[in-house]
């Protein structure tokens, strides 16, 4: 399964949810869905924006873990 490590990256960059949502151009609700792992998919454009704002690579935000 895909693990979203957005929380960790946000903490590293010391950026709040409000600020990130504003800069990426998505709603707080959608950012919350993404952070909690409830999202079904992420657009490349959104991922690109997040990487741009957090100055990181997609691998820093997304991780893969084998399901037990």
């Amino acid at each position, binding site marked *: 399964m895909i693990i979203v490590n957005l929380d960790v990256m946000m903490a590293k960059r010391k950026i709040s949810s409000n600020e990130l949502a504003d800069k990426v151009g998505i709603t707080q609700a*959608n950012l919350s869905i993404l952070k909690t792992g409830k*999202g*079904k998919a992420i657009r490349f454009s959104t991922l690109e924006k997040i990487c741009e704002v957090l100055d990181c690579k997609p691998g820093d935000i997304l991780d893969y873990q084998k399901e037990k």
Partner: protein
Amino acid sequence: MFPIEMNKMGKILKTIVIIGIVFAIPCILLVPFLLSNNYSVLYSMIIVYPNGGLMVAIAFQFLKMFDSLEKNNPFTKENVKILQKTGRLSFGMSLLWLMDLFIMIALIHNTYINYILVLLFLFILFFGVGIALWTLSLLLQQATEYKEENDLTI
């Protein structure tokens, strides 16, 4: 523009079904008195009555669905279940019409050929409606899944 139309449509359909139920119930109650001299037809009323009950159940299920149309949220799992339920009820109705048909053939010496043809038509009609509702429920299920996926794509 579309949500307003869907909203209105929900209200209109709901009103039509409510009017239908209001008119149907007195009709169901009056029919035995109108047919009191015709025992052969009255016999088949044993099956027509449960059919009326199933029809009212279908109407109430549709009322629930029109509620969601009014709220501009028709793509829900509840609506899929409602369509599946109405499909099953429709199959039940077609089965009852078939039973009525057999009763008529066995007991009435084939004298009421027109009535038998009507029953055959009703059996085929409700069987077809059941298949249509079942197919629609599958389509709505697929649409609900697509919508959910689309809503959760960020």
